[in-house]
């Protein structure tokens, strides 16, 4: 299983904080996970996950979308950070 988390306006757009997603052999990268999420969720999810500047974190580190996935990973999607 993968844990998928959403923050800030992506969380609000999807009305979803966290999902558990089955990890399968075809889901090689973060990109593949996004395709799978949009396949299930439809246009609203496409719009939220493919807006410009979405940040992708894998196990709490920012990564590129071609980063490989493995079972048990935690993936998060969020807009650019605005701390301080």
């Amino acid at each position, binding site marked *: 299983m993968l844990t998928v988390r959403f*923050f*800030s306006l992506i969380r609000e757009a999807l009305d979803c904080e966290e999902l558990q997603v089955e990890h399968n052999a075809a889901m090689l990268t973060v990109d593949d996970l996004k395709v799978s999420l949009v396949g299930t969720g439809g246009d609203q999810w496409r719009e939220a996950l493919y807006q410009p500047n979405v940040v992708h974190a894998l196990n709490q580190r920012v990564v590129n979308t071609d980063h490989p996935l493995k079972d048990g990973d935690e993936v998060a999607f*969020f*807009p650019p950070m605005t*701390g*301080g």
Partner: protein
Amino acid sequence: MSVLVQESPFSVDSQLRILLASNRGAGLVTFTGYLRDFSEAGAIEALELEHYPGMTERVLEELGALAARRFGLRGWRIVHRYGRIEEQDPIVWVGVLADHRHEAFSGCQFIMDTLKTKAPFWKKEFMRDGRVVWVQSKLDDTEREQAWQEDVYE
């Protein structure tokens, strides 16, 4: 642990005492960020800070350790609130100790500039006129953070 991420308000005096209890240095620089009462969107009543529990602490710990190595700091502490912030409450406090003032200034500014774009916090402003606005990241902040990266290779 030199990082504190909490929902409740904190006392700047206490945080300073914690930093000084374990570290000494000839120069201390602190930054305190308060809720701005006005933004590009208008007059602000309150702020809500969302964060990514776990990742936040990790990013701030790594950032402090990096600043300590890069600027030869004697000590550092980073405190950041999340949740709802009312007017005039401090949101963030960073204190750094160094042997020389220039390192202390640079270390503190580096931590703040990097924290702005690398620590997983998101600000939502509650305006006086009733609107609720997610704060957009500023190009300015990204440029400041990147300037420190270029600095490494100079």
